[in-house]
């Protein structure tokens, strides 16, 4: 037997062990997926986790209170049924003369998109009954800024606003006129530029799609990590499933934060 090519079962266990202890690179992860052939095997990950618990003993330090509050504030959008969505209140922004966020200015702020996890967001297309406060109602007092379209054909008629509550780490995009996309062809992805982080690595705000003919939608923001000092929200069109590195060729909408000229009310 060639020692460089162990039997599949042995190689599978090697990769499972490496995943549990060191992580896998993309090539190894793909190889493991092939070897598992659709099965899920977390037995070695769990063994490593059990060993971790045994070696570490009882946690000696509680979760910091501020961090706990941030996690609790973030959880309602992720645990349980999706947020209730109502039609975007067009009157809130209609008729306002809002400062144009020039594409050149946006581009200057749209730093290198180099990495970041993807957090799929279910499309939130239409009105539904809202027995409990909607996301918009819960964030009625949150800061907001106008979304300005690029000259991309899909965004030509687009507009709307971004609403963000820094304390709750919650927000949403209220979109109008952004063209629908076939989810087999692409998805919109939100990026949040955070001054407290490396500007090359905007925070992934989540994926969403819009169906053909859908003229408005409210999309909850699902930031993958805490956003401390947002400076720009940008929506791009990406391949299905989103990307971790955007080529920045198809930017649809941007909103500087905080908006120059005040909030939209």
């Amino acid at each position, binding site marked *: 037997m060639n020692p460089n090519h162990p039997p599949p079962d042995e190689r599978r*266990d*090697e990769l499972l*062990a*490496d995943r*549990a*202890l*060191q*992580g896998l*690179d993309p090539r190894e992860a793909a190889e493991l997926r092939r070897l598992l052939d659709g099965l*899920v095997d*977390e*037995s*070695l*990950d*769990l*063994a*490593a*986790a*059990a*060993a*971790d*618990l*045994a*070696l*570490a*003993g*009882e*946690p*000696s*330090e*509680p*979760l*910091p209170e501020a*961090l*706990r509050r*941030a*996690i*609790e504030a*973030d*959880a*309602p959008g*992720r*645990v*349980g*049924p999706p947020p209730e969505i109502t039609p975007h209140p067009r009157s809130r922004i209609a008729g306002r003369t809002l400062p144009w966020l020039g594409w050149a200015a946006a581009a200057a702020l749209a730093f290198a998109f180099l*990495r970041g*996890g993807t*957090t799929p967001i279910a499309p939130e297309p239409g009105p539904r009954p809202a027995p409990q406060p909607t996301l918009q109602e819960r964030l009625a007092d949150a800061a907001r800024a106008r979304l300005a379209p690029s000259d991309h054909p899909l965004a030509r008629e687009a507009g709307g606003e971004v609403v963000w509550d820094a304390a709750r780490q919650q927000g949403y995009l209220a979109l109008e006129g952004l063209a629908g996309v076939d989810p087999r062809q692409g998805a919109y992805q939100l990026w949040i530029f955070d001054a407290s982080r490396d500007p090359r690595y905007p925070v992934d705000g989540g994926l969403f799609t819009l169906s053909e003919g859908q003229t408005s939608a409210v999309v909850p923001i699902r930031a*993958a*990590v*805490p956003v401390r000092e947002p400076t720009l929200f940008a929506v791009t069109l990406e391949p299905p499933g989103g990307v971790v590195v955007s080529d920045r060729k198809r930017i649809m909408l941007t909103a500087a934060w905080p908006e120059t000229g005040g909030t939209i009310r």
Partner: protein
Amino acid sequence: MSRVAGDPAEEATRTVSESILVRIARGDRAAVRDCLDRHGGLVWSIARRLCPDPADAEDAVQEVFIDLWSAAPRYDPDVAAESTFVAMIARRRLIDRRRRASRRPDHSPLPETLAAPPHEGPDAVERRDEADRAARALGGLDEGQRLVLTLSIYHGLTYDEIARRTGLPPGTVKTHARRGLIRLRSRLAAPHPEPPERA
């Protein structure tokens, strides 16, 4: 990995633990607070150990809980204790972050006795039977495997770093790690784990 039936007190504790992720999977948002009460310190301690920069650790912990909310539906109490499942989610995220960041934590000095898992008081062991079983299973590994797994799992060292620290050839480190973990899995799955070997 099979579970072993414990005594009634342990079963009661397990039932309480199970309910949290099950409730979260059902969409019970009130379970979030219970989850943070029960597992917040665990996740924070793993993050602080494997991610020494406090700001990075805070980001990591938030990511861990985001992962946990979405992973809750696939938690199976017949396979692992809830704390083990939570630790697995935390470790996976932290390992992934470390790989992506391509940087290593500043490791604190290694303890004098690497081979011996820390001892806990009887109450803690009773609360955390799976950790206790894992400690006994670790104790049953041979010294080389136990050393390599301790350096990898607890101290977060890479295979190459373990090789440099121990003087073992890198290939031996990998073999110890893989075989040791596979053997650990077997021992954890055994109905009656063997008593620990004494050095």
